[in-house]
């Protein structure tokens, strides 16, 4: 799901970099110092989740969990994803430092959609089950990331259209998997520690 260094033209790198700095900076500026441990914990959670490989047909994929981060962090969801990607780029050379802006936006913005969906679910007291809304949040976040990624690649260079389609289609099973895992995690959190979610959803 990451775009590596050296793929995108300077204009897109600069534009997304500025947008990411602006959004990240504004969130950091407004966030209470008390929130720092929570953001940091979610950052490492996001990082560690990317080390968990789940079997997917003949191959395996690693989890993204941007939807779950959105559910837990609410308005600050962009920060753990941004810092998680920074750590991945610095510690694992996964993704790229100059492509951080693009990657943060394509993965961070959908986390807000997941938050919105789950909030909606809470407001109707989970007609059905938290699983349904967890699933929608997890699946929707990955799907939206893929759409954004596809738009960026297509916009960057017309010769990327084919690659963009391959990436988009190849990740569809992962999106469903993410939905299922996020759904079960949401069921667990609602049952065991509703307080964890309360803070972001009242």
């Amino acid at each position, binding site marked *: 799901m990451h775009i*590596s260094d050296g793929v995108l033209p300077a204009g897109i790198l600069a534009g997304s970099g500025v947008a990411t700095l602006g959004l990240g900076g504004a969130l950091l500026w407004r966030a209470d110092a008390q929130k720092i441990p929570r953001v*940091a914990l979610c950052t490492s*959670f996001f990082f560690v989740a990317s080390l968990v490989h789940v079997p997917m047909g003949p191959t395996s994929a690693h989890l993204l969990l941007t939807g779950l981060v959105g559910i837990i962090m609410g308005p600050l969801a962009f920060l753990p994803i941004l*810092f998680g990607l920074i750590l991945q*780029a610095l510690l694992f050379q996964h993704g790229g430092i100059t492509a951080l802006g693009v990657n943060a936006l394509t993965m961070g913005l959908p986390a807000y959609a997941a938050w919105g969906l789950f909030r909606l679910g809470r407001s109707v007291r989970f007609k059905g089950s938290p699983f349904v809304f967890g699933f929608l949040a997890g699946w929707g976040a990955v799907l939206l990331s893929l759409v954004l990624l596809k738009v960026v690649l297509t916009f960057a260079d017309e010769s990327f259209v084919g690659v963009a389609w391959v990436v988009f289609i190849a990740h569809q099973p992962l999106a469903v998997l993410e939905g*299922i895992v996020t759904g079960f995690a949401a069921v667990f959190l609602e049952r*065991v520690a509703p307080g964890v979610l309360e803070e972001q959803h009242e």
Partner: protein
Amino acid sequence: MHLPEIDKYAHLDSPLQRWDARVKVACIAALMVTVVLMPTYPLALAGLAVAAGMLAISRIPFSFVLVHVRWVLLFCLFLAVILPLTAGGERLWQAGPIAVSRRGLSTAGLISLRAVAAVLLVFPMMGTARFHVTLKAMRRLRVPSAAVQILAFSYRYIFVLLDEMERMLSAARARGHGRAHGLRKLRSLGSMLGMLLVRSLERTTHVYHAMAARGYRGEVKTLDDFRLRPADAVKGALVIAAAALLAAAGVLA
């Protein structure tokens, strides 16, 4: 599990390890931005050569680098297969419905050179000082305190979470959950991730309150401090000169 150990070779002795971390991080970051934008093959190769040269100076073992760059290499391989088949334009070679595009092949090559050059530069930048020293350097370079704190805490928590997860996995195995398949496996994975969150959120909040009670105000104070020597400035000037030369050649190309 593969631990993030980028600063494993920070103790080696080379001009890069001895370089003032503030100047090092700033200069190499500038060089990195330059190499990823190189527009032609000769220039991208020159960028790669500079990156490889700096890596060699740092004395970080090649085997260590190879393990860490495998994701980038996989990504390049993926592009090298897909792009020539899908990019269109002039055909280099054709067999039935499969056509290899010249433009796709050359774009994939160029991207790979730039990506590998950029990733090699991460090692001289991040691998030649302990992570906390690099963070301190970032703070001195006016990165906001909250950002540096988040990076410092989350770096520490990564190891805590991995430990915790290892414990939960062996507990699950002991109870016979290890061999679950399909939906059942995803269910236990989801619950485990939820459990991991609940436990560690409580713990981190306690730790933070304990730190605040002991006078933590967001800045980490350490006894060692940065000192800028003439050699640091010379190294900085060399790297910036290389970046400026590449950038100028790139603009003219």
